[in-house]
């Protein structure tokens, strides 16, 4: 029942006015007195020992500040999980573009030339460029066996299932690297002062991640590290852990020079040197009954982590947990593995392992359908999870989810059956072939298992001297609507006008650690904490005499009085793990996520066989999200995620050579323009969520999971040719068709 006034409405974006007037200030819009520019000298080979570093004598190197690994006061690593990634290479490089030296100068053009004037001699070592080569271990490049992490999910008795099966269906599915391609490149400004310590302003998602990394790198105590998030022009995970590297670089230069230092990447450096989505390979072997029920199966999910461990273990975790899709598996074995290769480390990108394993699952469902002789619709309908059933990790579904009903709604919205019939006829004539494809999936929001408990997020709400309310959280805005939604929630909780609520700039000196802005957790988890903390403010004022059904003016007056009398009015809320949510980290079993959002996506695809190009003509995105907190923001998230998913499927290919990205320019790394995307039609179902603010579930990453398999399924429907690998470019479709028997093409 919705009696809310503010939550559920499309209130104005909090920082929107600045964005449409050009007033919003991103890192490169900021300068400081005496500021130097910083730049990075990077490895030009994939792996080797550094023998000699020479500085071209035609430069006056005294004008420059130079930093190497030897200048690092603390530990030469980017503190994250495994701490194996150096901040600066020390004697050895393990991937192309690995940072070796830092330079600073006040003229960025002179600086650019200086970077090119440093020559490095290496003794090359053998490098590894594919997951398969890494697995073979003929060359060990990391640890004992090139393996960053493995997981095993084991449910039920798998051995007996093969004999009972009427069909055993196998398939292998692969996905390529994908560049986040935020339109604002990575950038930071660092300033050092012996008393205050280091201050970092950055384009970043997680101020406290950077804070932790700077403490370790610079050997500074917590109170001498301050991290401030500037307006951030897109992130999508690409600014989750990477900013700790660029911040560390700027900080080292700032400390050595005694002046503020700005480092801004240009597009080529950002594309070639920073993180991408992990490439993946999934192998399915599934036991199916003759009426199309999944009896059990094995899934092997392998991701390429690049040269250092960084976030690979967590990406792997999410990938394996989502690998079974929204289906009931009576028994299953999921083996996950993250391996090392000689590429710049791969990292977080919206979806974080789930788009990869769900691509495989949804392609595989269509394969199972073909083998069994059922339609893609029916095979899914017969296997959807229901209330009371358990997921692959033995998590009991406690909501009355009816995916069959959602599927029916999506089929109607997309005119699926009528189009499929029409296409059968239309495809007989001419070079244009059309097809429809379905993807059904789920996405768990928040940190996995005990992750949220470990994060122990804290949020503050403050009553200000002028009677307005300020939200204090480390959660960052980078387009997805953090500022707006958290203020909406506070306004709703306090029954105050939305305009009375502000949100503090994420500054580690000002705001508590509400956890990283990742994992689709902000509205759901942090939002709940905002609500609690806001209620705490109300309770304090009510205890001080304010009556329960106050008007906004009365609240404001009470707040002003309290601050005048007590000096401040603050309330904090800490994450309290919900009861009945148990996760076993050893067995990798139990309640993986507090809640799942569910979705059915349907793509209509057109393939023109004169150019072999596939385009998406219509796209229906239907998802159950608990509660739509802000209709326009929610629609915007889904549409934007679908667009990235379409890019993942059809347009965005990283061209690698010897571990280095060759197409590091917007001319050659292709993302869709406004002329390439269909109408993306977004629809919601709302079933509530006891674990999320006002019933919301996280939705930021959900839309990334469905488009690619829906599109690949649609292309197979159109052409009768199987495509199990993305990105799927016209050249790939051409090769597959010209190698096929004519009878395989309708």
């Amino acid at each position, binding site marked *: 029942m919705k009696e809310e006034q503010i939550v559920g409405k499309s209130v104005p974006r909090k920082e929107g006015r600045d964005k449409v007037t050009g007033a919003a200030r991103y890192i490169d819009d900021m300068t400081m007195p005496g500021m130097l520019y910083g730049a990075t000298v990077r490895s030009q080979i994939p792996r080797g020992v550094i023998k000699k570093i020479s500085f071209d004598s035609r430069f006056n190197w005294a004008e420059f500040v130079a930093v190497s690994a030897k200048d690092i006061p603390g530990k030469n690593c980017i503190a994250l999980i495994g701490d194996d990634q150096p901040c600066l290479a020390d004697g050895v490089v393990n991937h192309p573009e690995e940072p070796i030296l830092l330079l600073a100068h006040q003229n960025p053009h002179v600086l650019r030339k200086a970077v090119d004037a440093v020559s490095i001699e290496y003794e090359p070592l053998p490098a590894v460029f594919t997951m398969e080569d890494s697995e073979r271990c003929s060359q060990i490049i990391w640890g004992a066996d090139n393996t960053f992490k493995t997981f095993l999910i084991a449910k039920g008795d798998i051995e007996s299932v093969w004999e009972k099966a009427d069909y055993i269906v196998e398939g292998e599915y692969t996905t390529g690297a994908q560049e986040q391609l935020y339109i604002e490149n990575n950038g930071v400004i660092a300033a050092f002062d012996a008393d205050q310590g280091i201050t970092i302003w950055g384009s970043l998602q997680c101020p406290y991640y950077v804070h932790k990394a700077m403490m370790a790198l610079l050997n500074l105590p917590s109170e001498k590290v301050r991290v401030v998030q500037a307006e951030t022009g897109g992130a999508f995970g690409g600014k989750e852990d990477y900013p700790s590297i660029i911040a560390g670089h700027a900080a080292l230069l700032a400390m050595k020079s005694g002046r503020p230092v700005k480092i801004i990447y240009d597009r080529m450096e950002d594309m070639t040197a920073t993180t991408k989505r992990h490439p993946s390979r999934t192998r399915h072997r599934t036991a199916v009954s003759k009426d199309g029920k999944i009896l059990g199966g094995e899934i092997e999910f392998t991701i390429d982590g690049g040269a250092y461990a960084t976030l690979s273990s967590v990406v792997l975790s999410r990938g394996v947990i989502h690998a079974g899709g929204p289906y009931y598996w009576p028994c299953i074995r999921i083996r996950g593995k993250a391996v090392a290769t000689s590429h710049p480390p791969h990292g977080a990108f919206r979806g974080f392992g789930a788009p990869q394993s769900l691509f495989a699952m949804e392609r595989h469902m269509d394969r199972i359908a073909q083998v069994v002789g059922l339609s893609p619709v029916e095979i899914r309908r017969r296997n959807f999870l229901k209330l009371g059933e358990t997921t692959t990790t033995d998590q009991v579904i406690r909501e009355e989810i009816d995916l069959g009903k959602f599927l029916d709604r999506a089929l109607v919205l997309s005119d699926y059956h009528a189009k499929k019939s029409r296409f059968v006829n239309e495809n007989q004539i001419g070079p244009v072939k059309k097809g429809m494809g379905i993807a059904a999936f789920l996405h768990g929001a928040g940190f996995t298992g005990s992750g949220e408990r470990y994060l122990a997020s804290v949020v503050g709400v403050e009553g200000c001297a002028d009677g307005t309310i300020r939200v204090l959280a480390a959660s960052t805005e980078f387009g997805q609507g953090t500022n707006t939604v958290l203020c909406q929630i506070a306004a709703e909780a306090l029954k105050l006008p939305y305009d009375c609520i502000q949100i503090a700039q994420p500054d580690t000196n000002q705001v508590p650690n509400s956890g990283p802005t990742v994992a689709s957790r902000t509205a759901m988890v942090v939002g709940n904490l905002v609500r609690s903390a806001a209620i705490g403010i109300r309770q304090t004022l009510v205890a001080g005499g304010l009556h329960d059904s106050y008007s906004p003016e009365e609240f404001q007056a009470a707040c002003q009085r309290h601050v005048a009398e007590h000096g401040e009015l603050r309330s904090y809320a800490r994450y309290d793990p919900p009861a009945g949510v148990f996760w076993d980290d050893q067995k990798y079993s139990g309640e993986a996520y507090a809640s799942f959002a569910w979705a059915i996506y349907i793509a209509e695809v057109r393939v023109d066989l004169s*150019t072999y190009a596939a385009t998406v003509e219509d796209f229906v995105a239907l998802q159950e999200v608990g509660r739509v907190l802000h209709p326009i923001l929610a629609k915007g998230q889904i549409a934007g995620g679908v667009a990235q998913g379409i890019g993942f499927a059809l*347009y965005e290919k990283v061209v690698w050579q010897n571990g280095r990205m060759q*197409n590091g320019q917007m001319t050659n790394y292709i993302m869709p323009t406004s002329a390439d995307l269909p109408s993306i039609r977004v629809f919601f179902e709302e079933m509530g969520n006891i674990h999320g603010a006002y019933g919301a579930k996280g939705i930021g990453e959900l839309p990334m999971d469905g488009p690619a398999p829906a599109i690949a399924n649609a292309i197979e429907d159109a052409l009768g040719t199987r495509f199990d690998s993305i990105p799927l470019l016209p050249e790939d479709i*051409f090769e597959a068709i010209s190698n096929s028997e004519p009878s395989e093409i309708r």
Partner: protein
Amino acid sequence: MRSAPADFTLRAPGTLQQVLALLATEPGTWLPISGGTDVMVQYAAGKLSSRQLVSIWNLTELRGIEVLPDEVKIGAGCTYTELREHDVIAREFPLLANAARWTGGVANQNRGTLGGNIVNASPAADSLPALLAYAAELVLVSVRGERRVPYHGFHTGYKKITMESDELIRVICLARRFSGYLQYSRKVGARNAQAISKVCMAALGRIRNGVVEDVRIALGSVAPVPIRLTDIEQMLKGRRIEPALQGVVKKGVVAAIQPIDDIRSSARYRAAVAGNLVAEFLAQLVDGGTLA
């Protein structure tokens, strides 16, 4: 930004004569820059070898489209936007108007010029096959005077043109005699807009009494220079277009082109698509290739 502005000189003399005088006194030294949509990209990438540039942007002598009874004279400084929006170009030279529409986005169309596209001589340039199909002629100008040359043969090799180092293109001339032709153009790129072409084609054809009376087929991105498929054109003249011809034509296309594997695409793909586009053109020619 990987070039230092301090290392470069740019002059804007203001009149064509002054520019030509500069080019004549120091041949090979001054790189003309018009709208900059090619030169400035190289500059930003740190790949511009010329350090001295002379601006020919907005020179009145290079602007304007003159419409005469028998021909249209397009100033080399005309932007793609001006080409797109010009009534006669849109009506009588749709291959060129389409190419203009497909080059970059609006911002690049407002700055990119036809002369610049020719002189930059990228084999992937979108407007060049149209100029080949229309058998354009160029008027080249220098301090020594003017000369008029056919556009066909202007490119002698990858990014090589038969123009002296002190010459500029002043106008591009198109004969107004293609109204009765079927006009076909298609660009195949990585996406629908802002894409460098993988294959692009411009073709004209006319059928009289069931046989091909005239046909011109030009392709870009399938050879070091934009090319006319003159062998296929010869084979088609005077013949009926029949289904049996399709296979021969496709083989002929593959034989006539030299596509490469590069960062954008593959030779095999380009060859296959080129064959498909030519077949598509011929199919349209059969259907409606008489009078407009």
